[in-house]
């Protein structure tokens, strides 16, 4: 398929899918560049999946290896589930970005470098002993050396800006070039520039010029022999927007409060990678949302329990180290049977770990991490868009069963973006529950609904229901303090049964692929896309492989055991060293196999395909 474009005669090639990685110094604006490309591709109608990968340091020394920030986007004309194993194109803004990223570029891949940045100083900061642009070490790639800094500076000549300010816009030159190469409109980004820099006309002009200059450079240079188009994806009908997991989480809880007909309270302490949820909810003041930036993680959950006691839909959000601090208060919420949601956007641990990198190693903490018998439902969205659905679902379970609920997201699903079919407000389920009111006879704060076993929500301000609750064991029914041995056993069993009963109120575990067969690949959380793509690939090779993905981790869906026993082998890939695997074996006595990787990165599809093939070969 060829069409004529302006400038030198070139072909336009239609591709099904392209993966681009922008890499540069953390001061080079790579996250912004990636986000702009993502929005443009999404608005055009491609399916997209992104993987922002940035260092924990805000500004590591310029040009250094630890300071490299990357953003990978895959955009496609068909349904995709991951940001791609390997980029087709790597844009490297300096030697450090080249060094840390070129290993992922397959032979024949396109490499666009800012040749201006390959100075002696930058090469030595990146630990290059010779210039890779000259020493032949990149000969397996299609290398495009472009003096981006110089060309960009020329385009901005005459503007009242320092050379440092000028240099900060070179990422938009690179973005403009990529827009040209992939036949994208500059309009969405130009609109964004107007909105962002409207009040600062010089900066707006500089960014516009940089973008246009990059675009025009592609058009006029003879360096590129073809441009590429990726047609729209065939997504189900509807109105779409691009959304990250953290955005969908915040929006999901806003919607949940609407669906619950209760005010929303969010208590939080800033922590990577969860802070964006606090920022977004803090902007919803006109909805009456009350956010509270607490003095620490403990105060954040304490205030959340206080707000829940007062009748709000109350949440606290954090990452693993914060959950560790909230542990005692979670036990209090279990004991007082108050509805709160604890959002954990997991990151690599233990301790401070790798603050900006993904891991799924907080599953044990979520299920077991409290003193005493303290059961708590655990849910985990599988994709950025699902973060919305599961925010509503976590709220529904908390309110209906009067229990704290753990919502396990992670850095990959939280920061990653994909197109999201926007639901209408009427599509939201009604998750409202009534407050208790004074009835006949003695009020029983720990009386229970026969079906759900939940206790009444008697909020202060309700006449006649004055009562006292707390962390000490409660007498069944009356809820006064009780040290009675049999009562403690009874209450412990009741709390267990209440949470276990949720299994009857959640959807069955679904299987993608044959209902019985050789191999089931069982996952949870953000590994969904990689596992799904791997299973599609294995099925295309004619292998008897199915996928099941758990969104409910405590309790499990009722049919989980049946599903697991329908396959000769169960493989559990996780970004931990076998936590779901351990729980599955303990719960169902299934001889499952673990495939754990903790590299601070999402799975590559190929890793799962290879492991599945290895096992299939071994067991056949």
């Amino acid at each position, binding site marked *: 398929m060829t069409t004529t474009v302006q400038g030198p005669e070139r072909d336009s090639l239609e591709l099904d899918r392209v993966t681009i990685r922008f890499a540069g110094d953390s001061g080079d604006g790579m996250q912004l560049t990636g986000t702009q490309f993502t*929005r443009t591709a*999404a*608005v055009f*109608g491609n399916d997209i999946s992104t993987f922002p990968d940035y260092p924990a340091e805000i500004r590591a020394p310029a040009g250094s290896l630890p300071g490299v920030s990357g953003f990978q986007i895959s955009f496609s004309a068909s349904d995709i589930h991951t940001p791609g194993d390997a980029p087709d194109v790597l844009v490297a803004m300096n030697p450090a970005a080249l060094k840390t990223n070129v290993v992922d570029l397959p032979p024949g891949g396109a490499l666009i470098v800012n040749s201006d940045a390959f100075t002696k100083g930058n090469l030595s900061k990146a630990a290059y002993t010779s210039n890779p642009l000259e020493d032949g070490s990149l000969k397996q790639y299609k290398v495009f050396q472009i003096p981006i800094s110089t060309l960009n500076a020329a385009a901005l000549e005459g503007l009242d800006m320092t050379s440092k300010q000028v240099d900060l816009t070179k990422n938009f030159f690179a973005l403009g070039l990529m827009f040209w190469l992939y036949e994208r409109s500059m309009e*969405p980004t130009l609109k964004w520039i107007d909105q962002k820099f409207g009040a600062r006309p010089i900066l707006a002009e500089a960014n516009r010029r940089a973008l246009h200059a990059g675009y025009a450079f592609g058009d006029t240079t003879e360096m590129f022999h073809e441009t590429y188009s990726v047609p729209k994806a065939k*997504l189900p*009908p*509807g*109105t*779409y*927007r691009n959304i990250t997991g953290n955005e969908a989480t915040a*929006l999901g809880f806003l*919607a949940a409060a*609407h669906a619950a007909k209760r005010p929303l*309270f969010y*208590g939080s302490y800033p922590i990577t990678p969860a802070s964006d949820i606090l920022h977004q909810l803090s902007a*919803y*003041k*006109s*909805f*009456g*949302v*009350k956010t*509270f930036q*607490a*003095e*620490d993680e*403990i*105060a954040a*959950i*304490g*205030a*959340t*329990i*206080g*707000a*829940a*006691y*007062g*009748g709000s839909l*109350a949440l606290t959000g954090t990452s693993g180290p914060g959950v560790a601090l909230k542990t*005692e208060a979670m036990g*209090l919420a279990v004991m*007082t049977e108050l509805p709160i949601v604890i959002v954990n956007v997991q990151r690599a641990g233990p301790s401070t770990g790798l603050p900006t990198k993904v891991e799924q190693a907080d599953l044990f903490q979520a299920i077991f991490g409290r003193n005493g018998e303290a059961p708590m439902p655990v849910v985990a969205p599988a994709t950025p868009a699902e973060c919305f659905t599961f925010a509503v679902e976590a709220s529904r379970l908390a309110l209906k069963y009067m229990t704290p609920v753990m919502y396990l997201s992670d850095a990959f699903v939280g920061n990653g973006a994909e197109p999201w*079919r*926007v639901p209408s*407000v009427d599509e939201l389920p009604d998750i409202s529950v009534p407050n208790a009111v004074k009835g006949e006879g003695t009020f029983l704060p720990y009386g229970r609904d026969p079906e759900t076993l939940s206790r009444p929500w008697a909020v*202060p*301000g*309700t*006449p*006649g*229901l*004055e*009562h*006292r*609750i*707390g*962390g000490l064991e409660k007498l069944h029914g009356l809820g*006064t303090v009780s040290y009675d041995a049999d009562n403690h056993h009874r209450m412990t069993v009741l709390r267990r049964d209440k949470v276990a009963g949720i299994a009857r109120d959640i959807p069955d575990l679904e299987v993608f692929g044959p209902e019985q067969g050789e191999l089931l690949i069982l996952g949870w959380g953000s590994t969904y896309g990689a596992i799904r793509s791997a299973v599609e690939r294995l099925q295309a090779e004619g292998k008897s492989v199915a996928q099941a993905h758990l969104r409910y981790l405590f309790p499990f869906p009722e049919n989980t055991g049946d599903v697991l026993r329908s396959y000769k082998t169960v493989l559990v890939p996780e970004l931990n060293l076998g936590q779901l695997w351990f729980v599955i074996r303990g719960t169902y006595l299934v001889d499952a196999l673990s495939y754990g990787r903790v590299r601070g990165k999402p799975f590559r599809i190929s890793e799962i395909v290879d492991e599945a093939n290895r096992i299939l070969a071994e067991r056949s």
Partner: protein
Amino acid sequence: MTDMLTPAEPVKLTRKDFVSEQEVRWCPGCGDYSILAQTQKVMPDFGVPKENIVFISGIGCSGRLPYYMNTYGFHSIHGRAPTLATGLKTARPDLMVWVITGDGDALSIGGNHFLHSMRRNVDFTMIMHNNRIYGLTKGQTSPTSEFGKRTKSTPMGSVDRPVMPLTLALAAEATFVARTVDTHTEHMQHTLEAAGRHRGASYIEVLQNCNIFNDGAWREFTERDVRDDRMLVLEHGKPLIFGKDRDKGIRLNGLHPEVVTIGEDGVTEADLMVHDQYAEDPYAALILSRMFWPEYPVPVGILRQVDRPTHSDLVDEQIAQAIAKSGPGDLAKALLAGETWTVE
């Protein structure tokens, strides 16, 4: 805080309405009995319906108090009562909230929350039972224990210096700071009343005896026969005079308070510090907060009371501003925020 909470027709309740059915289980002779009794006694004076009153406590002997109040009550976890109270008051400014705590609960494990709930001016009243010992864990040193105190955990004497709770509360920007004594029942009632009516973070230190693990905690200056000479009762607008014969006073010498005798060396009442509990600046209150027996008589009463917008006032005001600016939030619009596209 009562203006917002009192119905047009204040409800008429009595002390008995605030007594719960729970059997009180403190050690006989404990100072907590008096704190409970005075609290129950003043509660009807606010005219607030009891369903609109919440008592929140942490852990320690003081933590049991909410069980004995026939209001809403929450016995939380160690040190965290101010956090629950902050969340509750933020979500429900219509409630009257009391925080019951102790010296260990508030100043040790909950020190951070003490600081931040005070500086936020959360509209609750914190009653800190200060017996200078860990009672419920059977007698270890506390943050207010004397330097060198021998306890089970410090057999050769504590090497930690005690904190001055009132100084801390002032430094943390509490808008109402007072001290009273468990056995001075009338004084405690007045203090509780004033604190309960104050809008903002109110802090009361109650000097309380633990007759089991720290008997006579404050005896040196609180006993009937010595207290006039060793304590200084603060009254707004009055000079700082004390003593059985009302002949002693506090004079400021530079930045240092000094004890003087009226009539000696030409000292007259006019030379004494005059108490101004409403002073905008905190300097005089800070000086009072540092005065302690045996160098000085121990001040009791309201050290400082200033008007500041409360935490929930400010939170609600921002919400009102946001709504005034852009109208009440529209969920459908929020869902569609940013760029959208349609797939047919």
